[in-house]
Every structure is written in structure tokens, then in C-alpha cells.
């Protein structure tokens, strides 16, 4: 807390403005606690999803693909006609919904993780080099970045997915490549900012060559803002993967993914609404967790990122 220059932008929340009361002051202190707590909630939700994915075989003895037409469309355990043997009920082919949700987490996290890994890796390297080298290379890269970011994103993703066909690898590649410009833009901005600061200058004047400066001095400082961005983008990819699945454009129909489950459940919406309800809740649960986590990371790691995606 700066006391001398009581410039309020030192913290967006300690407002210079106007007339405040004691309750406002309490709320001010409380909000930070709440914010931290919401970050913890986000982390817990996210970890639950990760654990569900990792320990799917231990958590349910059902095979997510095993059909049992005699027991099809069983409602969840707590409604009439349900059984704790199938806690979330069964789908139209008698497959266990709980097992499918658990295994579906694997698909979502795989797409999210590798998608972000590709997008982040590609974007960070290209963006950092563009920002560092500048000139013609920077111009070309930024033109490409602007092109992709000004397009109707979802429409083009649907378009490419429909051309390439349904496979896990295709989905990962599509998200990895189409999402890299956002990382590139953030990385470039950070590099430009750092170049203007003194310590990079001093490294250069000490005779370091550019790859060395870039990888030893600049890259490590990029990690913070990029981790926050990665959290949000991973959440977005999980969202979009499910969306593609819903349209029948993601992983093959045989794979138990949340999007595929939603697409299948949609047909039985009025008679067996739980088939579509659980995958939707799973997506919401994951997305909520990652958004909370991302907000928290942003506050902790880098307040400037707020302007990154506009």
C-alpha cells in the first residue's frame, strides 16, 4: 500500500472516490478474503475433474462403452426407478452415465491440455520472437494474428472441423493452431514491455546474443501471464470441444466425450432429460472451476492481463 503517492490506481479497489462508510471498509477487507477463497474453490473444482479423469477406472467398475439394452434409460439413483448401481442412470444404449462422465473428463482434459500446450508453445515462441526481432517479421506475424482474431472464431472452427473429419488429434490441432494467436499477442506485448525495461538492455550491452537474451532473460518472465491466459483458454477449449461434439464434429461418436453425450441425450430430452443434463453439468463444473482459478491467478500473477483479450 502506497502511502505517499495516494494514487488510487496503485490498487483498483482502493478507490480515491467519493464518500465511503464503515460498511464499505469492511466490504473492502472482506472482498480480498472472498477473492482468495474463490480461487481455492476454483482449484478444488479443477482438481476434482483431474482426479475423476485419472482415476476413472477405480471410481466406476463400469466400462463406459459397455451397452446393456435391457437397462437402458435408467434414471439417476435419487429418482424413482433409479439404482445406486448406476448413480447417474444409463443412456439410451444402457451405458453407465457416471462412468461416461468420468471417462469424458479424460477427453476434455486431453483436448484442453494439449490444445493449450500447442497454442501456448507456438504462440509464445512466435510472439516472443516477433516482439524481440521486430521489423518485417513482426509485421507479418501481427497481420496474421489480427486476421485470425478478427474472424468469427466459432464459425471457422466448425468449418475446419467439418473438412478435417472427426478425430481427437484433429480437434487438438485445430484448437492448438487457431488459439495460438492469442498467446502470441500476449507474449509479444510482454516482450516489448520488457525490452524497454533496463535489465534486458544491460544483458544486451553485456554482450549476450539475442537467442540467449530471449530464452534466458525474457521467456522466464513470460510464464506468469501466460499461465493465467492458459487457464482461461483451456476452459474455453473444453467448452468449444463439447460444442463441436454437440454438432457431431469432434471426436468419433464411439468415444465417450461430454459433447457426444449431449448430442445423444438431446434426442431423449423430454423422456430422459438426465442423459443430456449430466454432461452439461460436468462442463459447467469444469468451466466454473477454471474461470475461478483463472481470475485468482490473474490477480495473483498479473493484473495487466485484463486487457489481453479484447
Amino acid at each position, binding site marked *: *500500500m*502506497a*502511502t*505517499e*503517492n*495516494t494514487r*488510487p490506481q496503485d490498487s483498483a479497489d*482502493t*478507490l*480515491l*472516490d467519493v*464518500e*465511503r462508510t464503515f460498511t*464499505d*471498509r469492511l466490504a*473492502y*477487507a472482506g472482498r*480480498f478474503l472472498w477473492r482468495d477463497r474463490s480461487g481455492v474453490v476454483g482449484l478444488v473444482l479443477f482438481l476434482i475433474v483431474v482426479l475423476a479423469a485419472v482415476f476413472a477406472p477405480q471410481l466406476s467398475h463400469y466400462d463406459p462403452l459397455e451397452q446393456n439394452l435391457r437397462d437402458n434409460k435408467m434414471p439417476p439413483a435419487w429418482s424413482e426407478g433409479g439404482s445406486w448401481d448406476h448413480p447417474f442412470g444409463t443412456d439410451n444404449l444402457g451405458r453407465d452415465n457416471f462412468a461416461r462422465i468420468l471417462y469424458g473428463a479424460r477427453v476434455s482434459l486431453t483436448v484442453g491440455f494439449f490444445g493449450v500446450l500447442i497454442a501456448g508453445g507456438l504462440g509464445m515462441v512466435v510472439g516472443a520472437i516477433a516482439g524481440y526481432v521486430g521489423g518485417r517479421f513482426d509485421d507479418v506475424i501481427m497481420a496474421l494474428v489480427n486476421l485470425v482474431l478478427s474472424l468469427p472464431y466459432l464459425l471457422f472452427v466448425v468449418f475446419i472441423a467439418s473438412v478435417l473429419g472427426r478425430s481427437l488429434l484433429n480437434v487438438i490441432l485445430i484448437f492448438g493452431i487457431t488459439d495460438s494467436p492469442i498467446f502470441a499477442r500476449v507474449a509479444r506485448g510482454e516482450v516489448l514491455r520488457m525490452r524497454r525495461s533496463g535489465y534486458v538492455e544491460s544483458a544486451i550491452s553485456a554482450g549476450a546474443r539475442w537467442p540467449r537474451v530471449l530464452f534466458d532473460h525474457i521467456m522466464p518472465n513470460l510464464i506468469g501471464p501466460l499461465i493465467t491466459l492458459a487457464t482461461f483458454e483451456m476452459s474455453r477449449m473444453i467448452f468449444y470441444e463439447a460444442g463441436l461434439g454437440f454438432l457431431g464434429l469432434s471426436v468419433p461418436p464411439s468415444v465417450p466425450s461430454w459433447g457426444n453425450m449431449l448430442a445423444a441425450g438431446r434426442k431423449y430430452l423430454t423422456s430422459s432429460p438426465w442423459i443430456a443434463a449430466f454432461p452439461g453439468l460436468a462442463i459447467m463444473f469444469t468451466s466454473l472451476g477454471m474461470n475461478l482459478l483463472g481470475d485468482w491467478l490473474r490477480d495473483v500473477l498479473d493484473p495487466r492481463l485484463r486487457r489481453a483479450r479484447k
Partner: protein
Amino acid sequence: MPAILKVRNLVTKFHTLDGIVNAVNGVSFDLHEGETLAIVGESGSGKSVTVMSLLGLIPSPPGQVEGGTALFSGPGGQRDLLKLSRQELREVRGGQIGFVFQDPISSLNPILTIGEQIAESLVRHQMMSREKARERSIELLTVVGIPDPRQRYGNYPHQFSGGMRQRVMIAIAIACSPEIVIADEPTTALDVTIQAQILDLFKRLRETLGMAVIWITHDLGVVAGIAERVLVMYGGRVLEIAPVDDLYERPQHPYTHGLLGALPRLDERESRRLVSIKGNPPDLLIPVRHCPFAWRCEYAFDRCWQEIPPLSPAGIQHKVACFYSIEQGGPRSD
């Protein structure tokens, strides 16, 4: 010379999540009619918070004025600024006390014309019509030395240089002929040559308008040319207050000594910051029960660690808060 502003035992704290920041700890001073008082100190000494507290301009929460009085003799008689209602305080701000801030780039609203930003103060305080306020604003632009004021009236801040924007800020501050102008490091963000111009402008305005000025700065070099008296602050307390010549000739506090030692020589063009006193500014989170400067003071002895030295006379109009006398080479005799 009667005092236009009498501040006594001002205490301001910031309630942050890290703890309570004791920003201003019992500051007292008088400002005389028509004089310029410089408040000098490092960042974190509480010099800005002191004046901002007087007019309800500290961010609150977390800031809170917790004690003291500030008797202001304005047109409405003598009133305690700290006891005024928000409405009354708004009448004083801009109307009887004007402000100039450090950074002229960010202190003007980028999407309003500079003319509008001067005129709105006149409309607010002097009940002028739009047209009258416009004419008066153009006059004010002339007064602060903006060429082509009639054309410039409709310009936006980004069309001005930093020095010109600071002139606009000064026009805003003096618009309603205030009794006091508070200038918070008004030259710090400017180049040296522009600094000199702004200083000259201030001196000229003070002569013609006769207002009192509180000039906040960390730069003792600037003070000599503009102020009559100097108040040295440290850790939210007043360490020394003296007429400017007296302070330069016989500084009484070891801290002031340090500050003057850190001054650049006359042949150096640039004024350096106050860097050459060893140690760091005090941590205001910890309330002190001894001299706040003791940690960094080479003369500190037992008593300095046991009680807070009171501000006591050390000459004509000269007061110092120190138990040690450098001139006598030993503890000050009470």
C-alpha cells in the same frame, strides 16, 4: 502576518490488509497569508497525504483522518476543514483552495477540451454563465502564458505539451482566485527548462494574486527559489520547520543535514534525488515510540530510542524535533 491555515496534530491512517499504515502522525504547522511554504520529504514521508487529508482527497477506504484540527480562515470566517460536511468541503475545494498535481499528462481528462475543464470550475463556484466562464477561461489561459488562448480553448489535452498542460492545470487551480494553492510536486514530471518556466510562472502569479502556496516537493534545490519557509517531514512527522535561508545556513536536524549534503552543487545541471542518506525510509506499519529517524541517524543516542523528540524552538521561527545539537556537538540543552 496572520495564519490563513492552522494545522494541529493531524493524524491520518490507512487501514490496509497488511495492517495499519501510520501515514501522518501528529503534524502541526501554520500557513501565513500570501506566503509559500515548502513541504519537503522523501516518498512515504507523508507530505502529500498531509495536504490531501485536509480536503478529504485521500482514498477512503482505506484512508482515514483520525485526529487533529485544520483551521482555515476563508471568506466564510474561520472554520475547521476536518469538521466540514462533504458539501461544505466541495465549496472549499476549487473555490478557496486550488490544486496542481504532479503529472499534467494524466491529470487532465483526455476527452474534454481544456477550456471546458477550466470553465466548469467557474460555473460551479462563481455561478458564471457558460459564456462568461468561457471568456474568463480564455483570460486565465492568457494569464498562465498559453499563446493563442482563444484557439486553444477548444483543444484537447493531448494537443498540448507537458509544460503547457501544467500551465492549464495552474489555470484551473487559480480560476476562482483561491486563498491557497496546493502544488503537489508540480515540476517533478517536467524537464529542467520547463521546470524553471513553471517556477517563474508561480512566482509571478503569487505576486499578482497574493495567494498562499503549499509547495510539496522532494527536491530541496527547487525550494530555495520559491519558498519563504520550509517544513521537513519524515515518517509522517515534522522534523524541522524554518525560514528557508535559516534552514540552508544552519540546518538543525541530522536528516536535514543529510538532505542538504545530498543536494547537487550549483554547477551541476540536474537536481539529484535524495539518495545519499544511508538506509531506507521507515516502515509506517510499525508505530514508533522513539525518534523515527533514529535508525538512520549517525548521532542517535539513548534518549533518541526512548522518546519521540518534540518540536522545540531552535532559533527565530526555527523549530526542530531532535535531542542532539550538531552545533554544540552533544545533546541539545533544554
